[in-house]
């Protein structure tokens, strides 16, 4: 009997989910901040099959009978937030065996059910660049993920490019974090740069061998996971996300970038305000973080909230990151608020939370703004995104609701409390009770 019910309910689920796919969803009446284009006071967004199929003024707009209407009057809608540097998902990267480990994939370490991922959803984050740490010159490959709901395994949150490859960058770091003065590790900044240059030169040679082989398998060099990855970097297929704090370290990154021609996003850039013009002239984007006080390490004694405004003024692209667990993903929007506090424009602060981040992750053609044809990654807010009084009410990814503050389980994640730190529970309808994550 139970098995019969199970089969039956599976059929019902299949039928209803197929039907749900056909249904259109219209969010009607909110103030919409599309990021690209002017805000719409009384707007609508029409979603179908995970994409935005229309957006505009709601006045006088009617919808077909099969459209699910969601009344969002009095609320504010903007694109899902893009966190360009996070450590959610219990991510691990390179180990202590060496300072440069490009072959390491964070893909092989992330727990897609971790509560930290759910907290990010509660913070309105729909896309994150999950990075390994900064204790290495190169701690491995980063992973761009979409925080889809009900993920059981890493595959469920991956993002694929047009060639069908899952997307990610690579993490590099300079400055003191990766200086260890013991076997194989750099003891100075100059040594750090030399080690990185040596490895990139090897990758250039490896790339030349591959090119020379011209597709002939007998002439191909032996596979080398590390060099293969760095070749992707040299070819611009994999962006370097470079941890860097001090002004001189920032300039070192720009120097190496020029030498090897890789694509880079400067991460943290605590002293960006000192070299904002140089950063802008290099045409390199920056992902900044605003913390509550300076210090905590020597390289962040001169960090300023002013970084956003200084880079904006210089004409550089500015995004933001949580560096979760340095700052809590649930407070990501607060960083834009603090950037504005220090003189950044509201427009560019909100752009930085969304579209700028999408650009840094090569995702701006499909998300980061609310436009026809883009992914239906949206957040619904109770008010001005830059106000402390505002709460994130709902988060939607690919047209599906992944966080709802009015739902008790989701509220627990948003606010905290007993059990909030547990991994996501997986509900299986075919059994009595809850298996708590069983398959």
């Amino acid at each position, binding site marked *: 009997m139970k098995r019969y019910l199970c089969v039956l309910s599976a059929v019902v689920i299949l039928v209803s989910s197929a039907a749900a796919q056909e249904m259109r969803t219209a969010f009607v009446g909110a103030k919409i901040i599309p990021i690209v284009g002017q805000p719409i006071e009384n707007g609508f967004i029409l979603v179908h099959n995970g994409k935005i199929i229309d957006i505009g003024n709601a006045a006088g707009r009617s919808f077909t009978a099969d459209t699910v209407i969601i009344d969002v009057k009095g609320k504010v809608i903007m694109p899902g937030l893009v966190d360009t540097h996070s450590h959610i998902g219990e991510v691990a990267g390179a180990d202590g065996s060496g300072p440069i480990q490009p072959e390491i994939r964070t893909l092989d370490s992330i727990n897609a059910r971790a509560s930290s991922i759910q907290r990010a959803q509660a913070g309105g984050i729909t896309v994150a660049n999950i990075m390994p740490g900064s204790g290495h010159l190169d701690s491995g490959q980063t992973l761009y993920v979409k925080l889809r709901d009900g993920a059981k395994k890493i595959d469920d949150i991956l993002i694929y490019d047009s060639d069908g490859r899952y997307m990610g960058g690579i993490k590099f770091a300079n400055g003191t974090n990766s200086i260890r003065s013991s076997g194989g590790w750099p003891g100075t900044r100059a040594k750090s740069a030399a080690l990185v240059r040596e490895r990139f030169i090897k990758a250039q040679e490896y790339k030349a061998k591959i090119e020379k082989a011209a597709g002939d398998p007998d002439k191909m060099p032996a596979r080398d996971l590390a060099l293969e990855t760095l070749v992707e970097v040299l070819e611009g297929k994999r962006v370097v996300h470079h941890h860097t704090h001090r002004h001189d370290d920032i300039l070192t990154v720009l120097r190496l970038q020029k030498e090897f021609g890789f694509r880079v996003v400067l991460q943290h850039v605590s002293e960006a305000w000192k070299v904002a013009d140089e950063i802008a002239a290099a045409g390199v984007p920056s992902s900044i973080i605003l913390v*509550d006080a300076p210090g905590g390490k020597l390289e962040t004694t001169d960090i300023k909230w002013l970084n956003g405004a200084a880079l904006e003024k210089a004409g550089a692209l500015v995004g933001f990151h949580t560096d979760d667990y340095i700052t809590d993903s649930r407070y990501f929007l607060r960083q834009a608020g603090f950037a504005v506090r220090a003189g950044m424009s509201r427009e560019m602060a909100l752009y930085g939370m969304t579209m700028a981040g999408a650009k840094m992750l090569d995702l701006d053609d499909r998300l980061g703004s609310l436009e026809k044809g883009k992914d239906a990654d949206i957040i619904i807010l109770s008010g001005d995104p830059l106000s402390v009084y505002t709460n994130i009410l709902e988060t939607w990814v690919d047209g599906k609701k992944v966080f709802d503050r009015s739902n008790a389980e989701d509220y627990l994640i948003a606010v905290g409390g007993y059990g909030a730190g547990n991994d996501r529970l997986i509900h299986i309808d075919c059994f009595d009770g809850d298996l708590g994550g069983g398959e």
Partner: protein
Amino acid sequence: MKAEISLSGTTGRFAAQAAILVLLLACASFAQIAVKGETVYTMDGRAIKDGVILTNNGKIEAVGTAANVRIPPNYKVVTARIVTPGLIDAHSVIGLAGYLNQPHDQMQVEESSPMQPELRAIDAYNAREELISWVRSLGVTMIHTGHAPAALISGQTMIAKTTGDSVEEATVVPTAMVAVTIGQGSMNSGGKPPGTSAKQAAMLREMLIKASGYGKKEDAARDLKLEIMKKVLEKELPLLVTAHRATDIMTAIRIAKEFDIKIVIDGASDAHMVLEEIKESGFSVILHPTMYRAGGETENLSMATASKLKAAGIPFAIQSGYETYVPKTRVVLFEAAALVKFGMSMEDALRTVTIDAAKILGMDGRTGSIAVGKDADLAMFDGDPLEYSTHCIGTMIDGKLVSTQIR
């Protein structure tokens, strides 16, 4: 002569305000200043619209509406949109912990032994620490700081104003509490005690039993540890007990009852699970920072706990806490601000870092609200003090403008 100085700046007017700054510094030494605020949150009754505060010789001389309080002609006038009492951080480690985070500026925990109540905070407090001027520029005028929640008894705490060039100038109360930590924060490993929370309780009880016999025999040698713990037993000093797990909070209350001592429950991530027990104990809570990281023994922390403590009628304040990396300190202004997201009103949130904090520290007789006779400790803002984009534009301590940074 009456010089009118506007402190009501907004973003983009930094240059003009820099010019004002020079004027302000010039009046930093004025003994008599009138502070005008479009709204004055006194934390002593209702907010005053179009308010005036007269300060004279470091004290608040008068407070009321502009219609009722006449500004004498020889007073310097400072204007801000919003004026609040100087903010009070009910528990910090700054001054002992410095912003460089290098061994030479990290004096908040001494690891040679798990119980060192004899360690005085005043012997380690650096009044010129950058983190102190940082929080001062964000309206914080008083801190309860000292040894960190990182040993079973890590040492003493002190209360200071965030001003002065020396510990002597800054100190208000040289020994305020004795810092005790039950749980993960003070746990040792590798056979070095304490290795469990039960061992922590046993060691603490043994220390208190030993102290109860101290001073009974004449000619007994002085013992700095027991001298302090004796004061705890005599209720002259409270224990500041950092405990996050519900079981550890209950252990703190159990020991306090056994020895009939005063404690303040600190951290208290699980407080929402034992509200009735805390209420019944009669003890106050210095709650974890609102945005504190959840994990390990703080995994159950809830950002709504403050609202629940309020509803239960339990006296509590918000703290900046102890940070070991980046950022090196939190700021109570921001931790109080976050409370408005979880059901607390703006004024109630402000109370957790002004008058309510003052009460727990026993400082409400001289600060924590804007009332006649209290210290002239004020924070000035160009808008809602809790809002992200508002700036703190001035801080006054003992009648002196000690910060005019626009931050």
